[in-house]
């Protein structure tokens, strides 16, 4: 190889490295520093404020609960949808396009759309009332109905963010050679066996990407929760927002931000380890 071209790869990645350095690494270091400083010195005070707050344990519990319920459901749904889409002969593009519409909608807009459905004077209550099932407007999103509120948030999140998993899984499914499945069929493997023994193992790299992406985003969930429940359902990112904007305590807000990052990094590390694919397992 001629040596004179060796700088080209570096030059090509330089813009993104500079971009990440300026707009990601610098703020990251600043945030970490902000979370550990009070006045001019090093201190854990912000973390103590955060952990001692009345909404902290609730926010941790809610965020994990939401992630543990929403992410597995999304993967199952997306797997079913992706398998269905790949089996389609006609209208495949149209179906895929319709299924991915929620991807194009901002999460706050999605939250507001669900709010319009579920609030006291919303479409759900109107429909139930018209059917004679309720006497007057029912509150679904109040602090006195925590499970209905939780269910509403799960529903909105499923609707909004399953498509991103779907897109990744479809790309993964298309990479699996048809021959494996056909060979198994000749040997008499039933569809379910083919799915669990061939498709799923070969889909592992895509599942890994999808899980990492969705889990990290689930730990950052904010706009949908805020639109539907305000502060009735505290989550980590929401608390960071409240400390920053309402309480004007930037240190405690930074502590929350660092905590969310630590949880996301830990989750990513777990996925990378559990769903590791050795090169010989790749199709």
């Amino acid at each position, binding site marked *: 190889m001629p040596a004179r071209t060796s700088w080209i790869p570096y030059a090509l990645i330089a813009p993104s490295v500079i971009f990440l350095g300026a707009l990601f690494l610098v703020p990251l270091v600043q945030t970490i520093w902000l979370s550990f400083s009070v006045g001019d010195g090093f201190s854990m005070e912000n973390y103590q404020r955060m952990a001692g707050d*009345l909404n902290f344990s609730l926010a941790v519990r809610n965020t994990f609960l939401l992630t543990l319920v929403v992410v597995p459901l999304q993967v199952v749904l997306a797997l079913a949808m992706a398998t269905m889409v790949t089996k389609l002969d006609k209208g495949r593009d149209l179906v895929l396009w319709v299924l991915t519409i929620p991807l194009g909608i901002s999460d706050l807009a999605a939250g507001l759309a669900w709010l319009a459905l579920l609030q*006291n*004077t919303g479409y759900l209550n109107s429909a139930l009332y018209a059917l004679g099932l309720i*006497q*007057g*407007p029912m*509150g679904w*999103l*109040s*602090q*006195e*109905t925590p499970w209905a509120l939780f269910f509403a948030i799960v529903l909105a999140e499923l609707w909004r963010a399953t498509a991103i998993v779907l897109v990744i899984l479809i790309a993964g499914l298309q990479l699996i050679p048809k021959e494996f499945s056909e060979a198994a069929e000749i040997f008499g493997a039933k569809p379910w066996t083919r799915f669990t023994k061939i498709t799923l193992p070969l889909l592992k790299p895509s599942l890994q990407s999808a899980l990492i992406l969705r889990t990290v985003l689930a730990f950052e969930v904010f706009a949908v929760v*805020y639109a539907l*429940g*305000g*502060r*009735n359902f505290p989550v980590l990112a929401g608390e960071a927002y*409240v400390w*920053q*904007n*309402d*309480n*004007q*305590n930037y240190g405690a807000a930074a502590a929350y931000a660092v905590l969310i990052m630590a949880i996301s990094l830990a989750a990513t590390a777990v996925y990378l380890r559990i769903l590791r694919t050795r090169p010989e397992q790749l199709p």
Partner: protein
Amino acid sequence: MTHPVPLRAIAATAALFGGLSVAQAQETIFYSTQLRPIEEATKVREVLLKGLPGKTTYVVDEPPAFAVRMKAETQAGKRTASVVGALHGELQPHVSADLQPVDDVAAKLKDRVIPANLMELGKLGTNQQQYIPWMQATYVMVANKQALQYLPAGADVNSLTYAQLQQWGKNIVDKTGQRRLGFPAGPTGLLPRFFQGYFYPSFTGGVVTTFKSADAEAGWNTLKELWAVSNPNSTNYNFMQEPLLAGEVWIAWDHIARVKEALTLQPDQFVAFPAPAGPKGRGYMPVIAGLAIPKDAPNRTGGVAVIEHMTKPETQLATAAEVGFFPVVKADLPPNLAPGIKLLAGAVAATQNARDALVSLLPVGLGAKGGEFNKVYTDTFQRIVLRNEPVRDVLEAQAKVLDALMKDTGAPCWAPDKPSQGACAVQ
């Protein structure tokens, strides 16, 4: 000259940019957290700022963005706004670092007759004038006329007590099966001000010193009963005009700017009246917005001109008529106000002139801790009313937080608490 055309283009461009920068130097940027909705901002641009010489650009921002921008511009050493308009509490965190004293402007405006207590608030706890009072508002109760038939016997909306309000809400629950009393307890609702300006003064005669008194304990127990007849969606309400207009809430307490739409859209459907009275009087809190000049303002003269213009009696009256904020200067409201604004003006006058009125001032001297001061009250509310924790224990625990906060800032007591030597302490 081998390239005459490009050179000429460069010269023209330079002249253009030079011209622009001169134009920018003459422009006055008026940066505000108030009158943000597009209709109100348009009124400011097209009506209220009319008659000012030179170009004034009115720019609005949410309060948190305002705070960040003021600090960022100070750090960067590059200021864009020459005059800022914000609430008393929003200006407070910027004292000394981001604002410059305006004693000279205050001296110029002597003839406007702004009440001395308002001017004193404008010093923000320092000995120099930090802002000039711009306009004022307060909080009122608004009720749907459908609710009036359920008023307890002998009760008059203009001299309501908290006990009567509770009975009123209970009557509505008993008769209609719906909890139709509402409070703005949502994420951006102004409930903290209810505690600081209404609930605590009315029940305890103080805000900080009486935080965990026996009177406060009794008050919180009353509030629990009040909450039992309040709409459970209250923790989602930020602006009470929305649930009022939707008919979801029949009786509400909120800032006049946040119920104005209900009153101006349907003046025949609603009544406005003062907040209720407790054992110690009818607590109420005036809200003051002020005009200040940021440090290193690019066009101080232009900024001063805006302040002079906005505090003219005729501009102040136009402000009341157009956007429903009331004058800080001596000026009588015209009789031809819109019906909704007239309702508000009536409720404000009834509040100020009530025999048992008990003025609660805005917190002074808390600096950047204003948000955490609010948090003490909302946390107490969450724990006692929403999570049903024992009143005594919560008050003891939160009093420690409040006491530490007051010591930390060294803020002396403000009315209705008795003046203190040094930091205001919880008793």
